[in-house]
């Protein structure tokens, strides 16, 4: 019932997907991490994360309303947003460089970046 082409396609998709997921899993967290807030393609605010920082909250005016962002204990989340689907709120916390929370209707991105983005295990030559 399943042909060889079936298996090739299925395995191809799984390998491609797992490769991408694992790539994001193994990014090193050693560097100085920052939370970057972008609105409509422009950088709104960059907040460096330190070990014993106080909780930070930001209100961002987006395309259709306000997005409330909370940063606490070197992780970040969206607590409330005016968008209809609330996907950004359901995304929960992000705590690794490369991870992001996206609010598409409001065009807000909360992204964790790192100074040492090159310090990935892949380039150990």
């Amino acid at each position, binding site marked *: *019932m399943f042909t060889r*082409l*079936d298996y090739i396609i*299925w395995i191809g*998709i799984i390998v491609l*997907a797992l490769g*991408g997921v694992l790539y994001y899993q193994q990014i090193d967290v050693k560097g100085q991490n920052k939370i970057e807030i972008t609105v409509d393609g422009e950088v709104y605010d960059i907040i460096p994360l330190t070990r014993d920082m106080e909780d930070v909250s930001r209100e961002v005016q987006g395309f259709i309303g306000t997005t409330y962002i909370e940063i606490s204990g070197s992780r970040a989340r969206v607590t409330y947003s005016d968008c209809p*689907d609330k996907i950004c709120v359901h995304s929960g916390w992000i705590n690794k460089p490369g991870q992001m929370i996206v609010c598409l209707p409001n065009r807000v991105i909360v992204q964790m970046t790192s100074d040492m983005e090159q310090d990935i295990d892949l380039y150990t030559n």
Partner: protein
Amino acid sequence: MTKTTKLVYLALLVTFAVVIHTIESALGITLAIPGAKLGLANIITLLAILLYGFKSGMIVSVMRCAIGFLIIGNPFTFSLSLSGAVFSTGIMGLAFIFYKKGLINVLTVSILGAGAHNLAQVVIASLIIQNVELITFYLPILLLISIPTGVFTGLSATYLYKLINKNYMITQSMGDLKNETTK
């Protein structure tokens, strides 16, 4: 007669698709990953392709998005669902050619459709929000999700197809149509 029968059944399929589409977006069923959906309306698109071919599948999916937009009234959802629907139906139409030759399984057609749907949506989303990293971050997870959802929609469409094949009226509208195109 047969043309009218086909029109009626296509309209019915569009209705089913619109209802499923609306209920799914109203319930906001999100899987573990934000933005990932079951894509239940794809069952109907796949069924339309299996019954009447690629063109009818495209009509059903585009009509579903257009009428769904009138009901839900969210331009963001519309632009995302339309791009996803058109691209995934195109890919499923291509895969359907291979399926008819017996080269691949229906489930693979469905998985390719689900994957194409996610690919188109992520690309449009990254264009809207002007961030390319969105693609590299979300696409692997969404591709992984598209395998179980694709299997689910594929199985549903196959069982529906087998059930519908017992209906004399529909099989007749399919059969006579095949004769018309060959003439």
